[in-house]
């Protein structure tokens, strides 16, 4: 444990220094965001690395934030059934990235054997009005099609792969079916809230044969963009330029007398005020 703690402290210093020095850079470059997700139903585990227990009693659906360990290698990463020495996953040495955004998922492979997959999370901006939907096949099940609102959106998705799309923000009704088939619906229908400016990551987890197929979700916010332009006029007013004279004057009855003068002043002002 001492080694890991020392490592964590070093990472902490690095993160702190990094962000202090990173004044002008996008903040996402300052360190990494690393999550570990438990995606195996009914299987509480202990996680060992560097010869020590680092997470005890890690349960299905739990997340551990490993961001403080960015850039380090977890040597001899081992996942054991909780409170036992039964090795469920021998993860070897897991190098954690120094930057970026990843989720490491402990899950079942297609045949039902526990394994660990590291997914890189796409944190690129989404267009204004849109959200991102990411589907990850991390279940003991064959390849599937994912239907969104009745249409196949992602086809032939197999473990341990992902598919993604940017969509207009809103609720997507999703169903998962075997590739090329309309039924049986193995997951869903489920309403997925694809929020504007966010990424909704849906993990299919569990086992088809074991009857534990289900989903876990993860959300990454802050990916929004500003709209392209604000088009707020398609017809001219007066001389085609907006007024500089308080319109309240016009309303006070200076309309007829001051009309010509106002026009000239408005026209003359425009180039000066451009910036």
């Amino acid at each position, binding site marked *: *444990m001492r080694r890991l703690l020392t490592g964590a402290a070093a990472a*902490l210093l690095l*993160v702190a220094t*990094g*962000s*202090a020095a990173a*004044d002008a850079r*996008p*903040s*996402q470059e*300052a*360190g990494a*965001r690393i999550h570990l*997700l438990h995606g195996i139903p009914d299987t509480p585990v202990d996680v060992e690395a560097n010869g*020590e227990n*680092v997470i*005890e009693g890690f349960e*299905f*659906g*739990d997340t551990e934030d490993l*961001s*403080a360990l960015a850039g380090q290698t977890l040597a001899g990463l081992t996942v054991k059934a909780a409170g036992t020495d039964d090795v469920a996953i021998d993860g070897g040495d897991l190098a954690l990235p120094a930057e970026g*955004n990843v989720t490491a998922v402990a899950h079942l492979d297609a045949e039902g054997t526990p394994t660990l997959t590291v997914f890189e999370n796409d944190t690129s*901006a989404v267009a*204004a009005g849109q959200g991102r939907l990411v589907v990850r096949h991390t279940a003991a099940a064959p390849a599937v099609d994912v239907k969104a609102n009745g249409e196949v959106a992602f086809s032939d998705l197999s473990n341990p792969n992902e598919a993604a799309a940017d969509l207009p923000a809103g609720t997507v009704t999703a169903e998962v079916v075997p590739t090329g088939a309309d039924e*049986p619906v193995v997951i*869903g*229908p*489920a*309403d997925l*809230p694809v*929020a*504007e*400016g966010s990424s909704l990551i849906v993990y299919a987890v569990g086992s088809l044969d074991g*009857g534990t*197929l289900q989903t*876990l*979700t993860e*959300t*990454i*916010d*802050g*990916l*929004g963009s500003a*709209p*392209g332009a*604000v*088009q*707020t*006029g*398609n*017809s001219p*007013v007066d001389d*085609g*330029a*907006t007024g*500089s004279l*308080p319109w*309240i004057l016009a309303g006070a009855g200076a309309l007829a007398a001051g009309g010509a003068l106002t026009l000239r002043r408005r026209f003359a002002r425009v180039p000066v005020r451009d*910036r």
Partner: protein
Amino acid sequence: MSRTHRLRGLALAALVLAGTGCSASGGNGGAEPEPTALPRQPAPAAPGPAGATRPLPPAPPLPAAAPDLPPPTGLTIESLGVAGAPVVPVGVEPDGDMEIPGPQEVGWYRHGPRPGDGGSAVLAAHIAYDGVDGVFRHLDDVRPGAAVTVDLGDGAARDFVVTAVERYPKQALPDEVFARGGDAGLVLITCGGRFDAAARSYEDNVVAYARPA
């Protein structure tokens, strides 16, 4: 177990530090998202439709907590003669531009903050549309210090005061106008500058900035 907690504590401390550094940089777009816990699915709920051969998993959790304030419904700028103009929520056109309602209405950009919440709440309205004066026909004449009142859906209202009026070439409208976080502010946008008759469009945007009164 205590070891685990110590590890978690350290991770948390590092995050807090990183978070402080980030916020000092002042960036908004593309900022590192807050680490989000992976919510567990609730227990399986109602059975699915006929024909499903497997137990159906539950729907995912609801999206993040609702904003603190109700959406805006009306706008008053006494000095411009705008009195209780209807405000409607708008989004984005297929081409990516902000959606703008008809000339007698004001559009509130529903993907951004609500007036009074943190960040820049955007209200946009036409200067003129198809020859009809829009609600923001005279926005260019509003002056710092002018009072702006936004009615909220629950019958309450929020008062703002104009701090600045700027004009930008349309393609140079600052993204900060749509900032999702930061101090609560209100931004009123319309068109201005030269009218390009061929393009049926104005060259500039007029932007009035306001802060809570």
